[in-house]
């Protein structure tokens, strides 16, 4: 069973991928906090509406396989936008570095709690599936 075929799971996976990638970009900013002229970057925010649309359109356009000879559709799980954009912090140092460690720490912690939230929601949804699959009273 492909959990990604269930829109809810596909969206949660998109959110988790987005947050992990964001964490990587923030790690990059913190690592380069002492490099002259370095400008911090960040991902475009995760958009629920966009995800929802791409999940719905991938569902609407799916072709059903009626014979074993039919080829499967390419992986149509929605992909969150993982492009990074310049996101300068509030101060610029004399050496031209735009990274403010405190602001990056805040971003990192918000990425972490976003991730924890997505994971616990994933667990919740899994336990719902499990409940549906278990025999009543069993």
């Amino acid at each position, binding site marked *: 069973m492909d959990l990604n075929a269930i829109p809810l799971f596909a969206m949660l996976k998109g959110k988790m991928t987005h947050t992990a990638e964001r964490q990587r970009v923030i*790690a990059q900013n913190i690592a380069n906090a002492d490099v002259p002229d370095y400008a911090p970057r960040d991902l475009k925010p995760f958009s629920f509406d966009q995800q929802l649309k791409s999940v719905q359109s991938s569902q609407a356009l799916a072709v059903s396989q009626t014979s074993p000879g039919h080829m499967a559709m390419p992986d149509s799980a929605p992909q969150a936008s993982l492009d990074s954009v310049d996101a300068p912090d509030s101060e610029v140092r004399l050496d031209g570095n735009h990274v403010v460690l405190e602001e990056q720490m805040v971003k990192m912690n918000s990425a972490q709690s976003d991730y924890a939230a997505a994971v616990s929601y994933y667990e919740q949804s899994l336990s719902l599936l499990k409940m549906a699959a278990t025999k009543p009273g069993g």
Partner: protein
Amino acid sequence: MTDPATSASAATSAIAASALKAQQARMRVIAENIANADSGAVTPGGDPYRRQTPLFSPTKVEGGGTGVAMTGVRPDQTPFHTEYNPGAPGADAKGMVKMPNVDPLTEMMDMREAQRAYQANLNVIENQRSMDNNTLGIIKK
């Protein structure tokens, strides 16, 4: 196929680790400066120890992403100061000895900054680990 989520997690740790290494190297340069703060000229007219400054530049790391590396040291070109010490082997006719251009206060500030940067990167690794643990938690259910 590598999952983007796992490769991002590995890259995050690699980036933070590269920064830990770079800050460690910077600490070494600072230690050299402090250790040699009193290494004055040994021959009359000779030069004393010259302060070194670390050079940081962005570097690609394994797994994708930009880490950082200390790519070298540059000699600090600020002038040496002189000290009256006629007994020293490096003293000139007037009894003046050239002393290194190291200011202990600057070195202390630099050291504290390196320490903060090191802590910040350690935080990144810890954060990443807790995210990985969250993911592993799904399996336990």
